[in-house]
C-alpha cells in the first residue's frame, strides 16, 4: 500500500518535471536559436535540413560585421544614458512627492492625489499625436529631453512611493522634527535610507520601461547617432537582405546583458515586477 502511494507520488513528480521542462524548453528555444545562430556562418544558417547544434567552430564574424557596420555600442550607450537619467529623475521626484503625500497634512492633499491617480487612466497611445506636436513646439525633437521628461512624469511611481512611505512609522519622523531636523533633512536622512526596497523597485521598473521603450524614440529621434538600442535592433531587419546571423548577433548583444543582470538580481527584479501589478 505504502509502495503504491510512493509510486504515485514519484509518478506525479515526474509528470510535473516533464511539463516544467517542456515549458522551459519552449521558452529556451528562441534564446538558444539566437545564440547558436549568432556564431554561425550564413551558409550554415540557411542549410537544409537545419542543424540544431554548431557544425563548425563558432565564428564571431557576425558580431564583427554588426559592430563595424552599425554604431551598436553607441546605441547601447545612448539607451543607458537615457534610462539612467530617467531612473534617477523618477527616484528623486517620486519619493519626494510620495513623502509629502504620505506624511504631510496639507489642504487639498487627497484631492490632488486623486487627480494624479486619474491621469494613470490615460493610455499612452492617446498621447502619440499631441505629444509629438508638443515636443516639436518645445524644440525637444531629436533631443533626449523628449524621452527623459515624459519618462519621469508618471503618476504610478508617486503612487508606489506614497504607499511605501506610508508604512514608515510616524514616530521616527516626529522625533526628528522635534530634534530640529528640516523637511529636507527628514527626507534625506530618514525617508531615503528607509526606502531602499522602494528605490530598488522603482529603479528597476523605470529602468526596464525606459530601456525597452520603442515608440518614443521611433517618433522623436532623428539622427542615427542619437538612436537607442531598440531602434538599432529594428534597423537590423533589412528590406532586401535576410542575414540571420548578424540579426541574431544584434539580438544577443541586446538580450544577454539583460539576462545576466536578471540572473543575479532575480529575486529583487521579480518582486519589483510583481509590484507593478498594483497599477490601477
Amino acid at each position, binding site marked *: 500500500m505504502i509502495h503504491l502511494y510512493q509510486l504515485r507520488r514519484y509518478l506525479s513528480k515526474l509528470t*510535473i518535471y516533464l*511539463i*516544467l521542462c517542456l515549458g522551459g524548453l519552449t*521558452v529556451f528555444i*528562441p*534564446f538558444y*536559436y539566437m545564440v547558436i545562430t549568432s556564431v554561425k556562418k550564413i551558409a550554415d544558417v540557411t542549410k*537544409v535540413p*537545419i542543424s540544431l547544434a554548431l557544425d563548425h567552430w563558432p565564428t564571431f564574424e557576425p558580431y564583427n560585421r554588426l559592430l563595424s*557596420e552599425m554604431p551598436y555600442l553607441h546605441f547601447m550607450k545612448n539607451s543607458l*544614458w537615457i534610462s539612467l537619467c530617467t531612473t534617477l529623475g523618477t527616484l528623486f*521626484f517620486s519619493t519626494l*512627492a510620495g513623502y*509629502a*503625500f504620505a506624511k*504631510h497634512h*496639507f489642504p487639498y492633499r487627497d484631492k*490632488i492625489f486623486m487627480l*494624479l491617480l486619474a491621469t494613470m*487612466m*490615460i*493610455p499612452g497611445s*492617446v*498621447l*502619440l*499625436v*499631441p505629444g509629438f*506636436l*508638443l*515636443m*516639436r*513646439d518645445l524644440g525637444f*525633437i*531629436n533631443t533626449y529631453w523628449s524621452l527623459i*521628461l515624459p519618462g*519621469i*512624469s*508618471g503618476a504610478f511611481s*508617486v503612487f508606489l512611493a506614497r504607499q511605501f512611505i506610508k508604512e514608515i512609522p510616524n514616530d521616527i519622523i516626529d522625533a526628528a522634527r522635534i530634534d530640529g531636523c528640516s*523637511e529636507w533633512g527628514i527626507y534625506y536622512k530618514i525617508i*531615503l*535610507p528607509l526606502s531602499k526596497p522602494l528605490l530598488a523597485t522603482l529603479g528597476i521598473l523605470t529602468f526596464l520601461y525606459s530601456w*525597452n521603450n*520603442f515608440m518614443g524614440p521611433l*517618433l522623436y529621434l*532623428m539622427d542615427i*547617432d542619437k538612436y537607442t538600442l*531598440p531602434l538599432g*535592433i*529594428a*534597423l537590423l*531587419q533589412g*528590406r532586401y*537582405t535576410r542575414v540571420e546571423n548578424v*540579426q*541574431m548577433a544584434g539580438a544577443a548583444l541586446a538580450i544577454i546583458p*539583460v*539576462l545576466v543582470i536578471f540572473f543575479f538580481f532575480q529575486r529583487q527584479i521579480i518582486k519589483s*515586477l510583481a509590484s507593478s*501589478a498594483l497599477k490601477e
Partner: protein
Amino acid sequence: MLRTKQISYSVLLCGIVLWLGMFDVSYSQQDVAIKFWALGENDQAAFFSLIAKEFYQKTHIKVEVQPVPWGDFRTKYLTAMAAGIPPDVATTNLSGPAEYGQVAGVIDFQQVFPESVARLKSQIFEGTFKQAYFRGHLFGIPWEATSLALFYRKDIFRKLNLQPPETAEEMEKVIATLTSHDYYYGFIWSRNTSWGMGTFIWPYGATLLDSSGEHVTWQHPGFLKGYKNAIRIWNIYNMYFEKPIELFIIDDPKVCAPMFADYYWRYSEIITRAPHLEHEFGIVPYPYPADGQSKQVVMGGTNFVVFRLSQHQSEAMKWIEFLLSTEVQLKRFTYFINLGERSQLMLSVNKEFWNLPLPLPNDHKKSLQEIIARSFNEEYQVGANDANRLLEKSIYIIENQIKDYIAERAAHYQISSYDFKKKMAQGLIPEEKNTILAFIDQRVEEHFKTITPIGQQLLDKGRMLYKKYYSTILDQDIQTFENKLDILKISKIIVALLIAMVIFWILYHKTLRKYWISYLFIAPPLLLISVFILIPIIVSVYISFTKYNPILPLSMAHWVGLENLTDILRDSTLWETLYRSFYYAVLVIPIQLCIGIIFASLLDKNLFPEKLFKFLYFSPMVTSVIAISLIWLALYAGTQYGWINSFLIKFGLIKDPIIFLKNNRIFMNTVVILSIWQGLAFVILIILAGLQNIPRHLYEAAEIDGANGFQQFFHITIPGLKPQVIFLVIMNTIGSLQVFEQIYMLGGGSGEAESRFGPQDSGMTMVPWIYRKGFEDFKMGEASAIAYILFAIIMLLTIIYWKYFFRKENNA
C-alpha cells in the same frame, strides 16, 4: 556610516552619468556640412559615405550620410519636416516629391535651379521624371530605377526545349510547361500589389486612375483583362512567392524554379550564391502581351528631394549633380555588383552610363538597358492613397477565394492542390481548368462591380480634401502662418498662467503658505504631468476636430467639426481593426491564463532547480519585445530552414513549409503566438503571488476530507485566484488593445516599404492604425479621433475594473 556609504554611491552614480554624457560626439562646423538621408540599408549609406569623401576633396562640402530604412522613411521624413529640422537632401520613394511638395515641404527644382535641371534633363531618361512633377512643379530628381525582369535557367530551358518568352502569352505557356514538369515558377510576393498590378494592366491601356486623376478605372475592359491575367498566372500554376531566388539556384528538380520574376538587384545574388550558374542563366524584360498597345514597364526606384527648410540648398544640388554624373554612376555599379548577395543595385537613370563598357554579359546588358529605357511611372494623383489600399485588399480577397476553390476541387480528386495544378497544366482535366478560368472571370468582375463605387468615393474624398484645404498652399506664404497663434501656444500660456496663479495663491494664503514645502515637494511630478499629459490631452481634443497635416504649422489646421469622427465610424477599417484587436485579446488572454495557471501551480511546488525554472520562465519579461520579435522573425522564416517550419515538417504535421509572415490569413496568429510566449511570464508571476495568498489550511482541510489533487485545484486554487484572474483579464485586454511593437516587427518593421502591419494590413490593430494615419498619412486629425475612440474603450474597461476592485475592498 550608512550615510557616507549612500553619499558615495550617489556621487559615483552621478559621476558615471556625467562621464557617459561627455561622450556625445559633436562635429566641428568649419566646413559647410550637408545632411543627407539615404533611403535604404547600411550598404547604401556606406556607398554614399565613400563618394562623400571624394566630393569633399573636390568641393570642400562635407556630406553627413544617414541611412533611413524603407519601413520608417515616411515617418522619419514627416516628423523631421514637421519638427522643422529636416536634413538638407534625401532620397525618397517615387511619390515622395509630390507628397511633400504639395504641402511645400520640399523645393521646386525647376524654380530654384533652372540651369541644373536643364542639364540633368538631357542626361536622364525621360520616363523616370514623371512622378517627380506635381502640378507643373518639379519636386524631385530621379536617382535610380528598377523594374520587373524575368530570370531563367538556360540549362533547364534547354532540357525542356523552351525559349525565353517574349510575350505574355509565351510566358504563360512556359509557366504551364514548368508546372507540368514539376517545376515552380517564382514571382516576388511583395510585388503582388496594386503597384505590381501595373505590369499587367498598362499594356492594355489602363491605369489605376484615369489621367486626370478624377476617376478610378476599375471597370475599364483593359483593367479587368490585365487583372484577370495576373490572378490567373499567380494562382492556377505552381508558384513560389516568398524569395524565389532560393528555388532558382537549387538543382533538385522537385523544388527548382527555373524561371522567376524579380528585380534586377537579384542579379549579383545569383552569382554569389551559385557561382556555377554564372553563364547558365539569362535575363529578359518582363514580357508584355502581344495584343497590348503599350510597351512601357512599371518602374520603382527613388528620387532626390531638397527640403524647403534646408540652409544649404545649392550645396545639396551640387551633391545631387555629382552623384548623377557618369563617373559616379559607374563607381556605384561596380560597388554594388561586387557586394554580392547584399547588392541592392537599381538601374542607373543616366543615359550615357549605358554606353559604357560594363562588366556584364552582352545579352544581359541589352535586356537591362531595354528595361530602363521603357521604365515609366504613373503620375502622382492627389488623394489616391485610400483607393489604392482598397485595390490591394481586393487582390488578396480574390486570391483567397480562388485558392479555396482550387483546394476544394483538389480535395474532390483526393490530390493536393499542387498535383491538381500540375494535372491542369498537363491538360489532363480541361473541363476543370475551364470552370476555374470562368470562376476567376466571374469573381473579378463581380468584385470590381462592388468595389468600384467605394473606390471612387475614397478617391473623391481624398481629392476633395486636398482641393478644400491644401490646394492653395503652394501659392501662399507659409511664413505668415508660422507666426500665428495656435492652440498649442495658447494652451502653453494657459498652463503657465495656471501655474503662476497656483504659486501666487499658495504664497498669498496664510494657511497654505504654512505648507509651502509640501507643495514644493509635490510640484515637480504635477508640473511634468500637466505639461506632458494634460496639455497634449487638451490639444488632441482640438486636433480631433480638425484636418491637420503636421508639415504645416498648427495654425493651418482646418476646423471640420465632427467630420473625422463620423468618417471613422463609417469606415469599415474601424470594425476590422477592432475585430482584430478583440480576436487577438480573445486568443491571447485565455490561453495565457490557462497555461499560466498550470505552470504557476507547478512552479509553486518549488521543485529543484527552482531558481533555474523561475529564471527561465520569467526571462521573456525583462527582454525587449523588439529583440524578441527579431528572433521570432527568423524562427518564422517560411523556408525549409526556418526552425518552426522544419520542426513541423519533421514531426509530419505539414508537407510544405508554411509562409507564416506573408499570408494575410495566418499573420495575426503568428503575432498571437509570439505574444503568448512573451506575456506568459507576467501571468505566471501574478498567479504565483495569488497562489501564495491562498491559506494553506484550506488545502489541509481538503486533504483530510479526502479531496485529491485535481479536486483541490478546481475547488480551492481556481476560486482563490479570482482577483488575480480578473486583474489579468482587464489589464491584458487594455494591453491587447494597445499592442504595437510585435506587429510592427513581424509585419515588416523597418524593412518593408508598403503594407507595414502584416501582409495586406492583416495585422493592423488600433495603435498601428493611429500610427498609420498620424505618422504615415499625415492625417493628425483622424489619428486623434481614433485615439479618442480607443481612449473611450479603455476608459470603460478601467471603470469596470475599478468598480469591481473597490466593491471588493469595501466588502472586505
